[in-house]
């Protein structure tokens, strides 16, 4: 392959990946309700987004669950990574397996399993069931991120700290947290994005009184394409883009 055809191939795949998103963003500025043709620039749809109180409540729900789930998952996921790496305890292999299973399990299976759990425990579907589920499916991603950074560290560091008289608490606070900080932030951002984007699991575990953005979008989209949805999706896209760049910055910084 010569240079030009290589470049063309790369461009074609990138176009495939990005064209729909660009089209979506472009349409969110299109001054027409139904036509796919360009009718001129407008911010009308963004205005109606701002005025849509219902949608704002739903967006607030999503952000709330996202922040809480990311924080919960990051705490538990980090503890899990540290425990798995440093300690020997009862059922360690099973725990490893559970985390792996959580990662590869289809979302739909996780979703219905949790639905069955909540209905068995008579927990009503809504905020709490959603939050618990989101924390659960985010944990393995945090654990993997933190664990791989932990595995890249010199194991002697922890022995050296012990040798110098540090307790486990001190090692966690003074050695582990500072060393793992980039991975912890990255894990938080990843969890937040996953929580914000999740459709399938939320579909099963939330109730009618606690709606979140992806599900709202899903129900709106099923009815038909509306320019307002375009605007909403563009905003969300912008938000995730910012988070990805932040995440990349964290992981990039750890390398240099």
């Amino acid at each position, binding site marked *: 392959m010569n240079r030009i055809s290589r470049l063309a191939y790369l461009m074609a795949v990138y176009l495939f990946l990005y064209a729909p998103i660009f089209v979506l963003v472009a349409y969110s500025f299109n001054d027409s309700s139904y036509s796919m043709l360009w009718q001129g620039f407008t911010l009308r749809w963004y205005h109606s987004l701002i005025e849509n109180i219902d949608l704002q409540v739903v967006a607030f729900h999503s952000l709330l669950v996202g922040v809480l789930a990311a924080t919960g998952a990051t705490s538990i996921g980090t503890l899990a990574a540290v425990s798995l790496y440093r300690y020997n305890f009862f059922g360690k292999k099973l725990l490893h397996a559970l985390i792996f299973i959580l990662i590869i399990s289809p979302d739909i299976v996780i979703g219905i399993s949790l639905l069955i759990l909540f209905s068995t425990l008579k927990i009503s579907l809504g905020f709490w069931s959603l939050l618990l589920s989101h924390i659960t499916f985010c944990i393995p991603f945090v654990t993997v991120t933190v664990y791989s950074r932990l595995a890249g560290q010199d194991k002697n560091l922890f*022995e*050296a700290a012990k040798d*110098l008289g540090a307790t486990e608490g001190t090692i966690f606070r003074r*050695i582990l947290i*500072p*060393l793992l900080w980039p991975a912890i932030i990255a894990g938080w951002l990843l969890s937040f994005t996953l929580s914000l984007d999740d459709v399938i699991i939320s579909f099963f575990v939330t109730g009618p009184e606690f709606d979140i953005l992806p599900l709202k979008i899903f129900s709106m989209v099923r009815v038909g394409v509306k320019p307002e949805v375009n605007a909403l999706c563009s905003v969300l896209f912008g938000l995730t883009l910012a988070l990805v760049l932040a995440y990349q910055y964290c992981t990039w910084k750890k390398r240099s």
Partner: protein
Amino acid sequence: MNNIIELKGVSKYYHDHPVLQDIDLEVKNREFLTILGPSGCGKTTLLRLISGFETPSSGTILMKGKDVSELPAPLRHVNTVFQSYALFPHMNVFENVAFGLRCQHLPKDEIDHRVREALRMVKLEHLILRKPHQLSGGQQQRIAIARAVVNKPLVLLLDEPLSSLDYRLRKTMQMELKQLQSDLGITFILVTHDQEEALSTADRVVIMNHGLIEQIGTPRAVYEEPENLHVAQFVGEVNIFNAKVLAISPDTIEVEFEGKQFTLKNSKNFSEAEFLYILLRPEDLEVWGVNEVQNPENMYSANVVQVIYKGSTVDLILKLKSGTQILATQFFNEDDEKLDFRLGESVWVCWRSGWEVILANDTR
């Protein structure tokens, strides 16, 4: 009590696999003890037992006469310098060295004072604010030592501390370690697989293999009077011959090897044996050109197979009539300036009588 550490019948098993078997070792106060052995011989495990990172499967470890076998690492007055240095990458030099003192919650003034003192000792006061990745390997090494000695341990354990440094720096650091040890006046236990390092640093050397101690002695003793074949082979180069015993008396042994008979001193009081090992260090062999010798009665005839020039010495690989290859080291000296050996040249080889080492040969 002159022994700072005593190990009595210490064994360590991992999943029924013995790593250390029935180790007895006494470490004297203020000595520089070096543990030498090939990788996997159990030397690092021995160190970790002393530091408290492992507990023995059986046997006891005494420190200053007290049983510490079950005492965890932070409670023993022992500190370790790790092979990888294990400096905390997110802390600067000061914080690294101060870490142990802060764990003891000492007053700020005292910490500051002791850290500076420790850094002065390793001559790195000026780097106090650097991060570990901004230091060279040798500097990191010294910070690791400072971080350990600042806690004033009874014993400093060093786990292959010089193995990642280049040759020249390693030489310098060996001398510095020796100096530091006499300045501090504490016991050093150093683990290494490098026999040269072991011999040049140690007051006493412990030679280990397969989880057992093979020999303990001064560097000179282990080199010149190895107790068994493994020690002889591991410490320095050696030529080994299988000798058939012809006659044995309390004073002399008559042996035959490589087609010649010799009468050797029976310094180890062998009473009866059919076979013995005769060990000859390469530098104890003398090599003569065919024309230089009038009476080659007690000499072996050999051909030069390989000449390896080493600067101050020349190593020769020689092939005896029997086909056995041996190594001989010749020194340049003023009397004999031209150590000029050609490949294939015929030479005479002999050794200085009495410099041979005789070991029992149990394998036959």
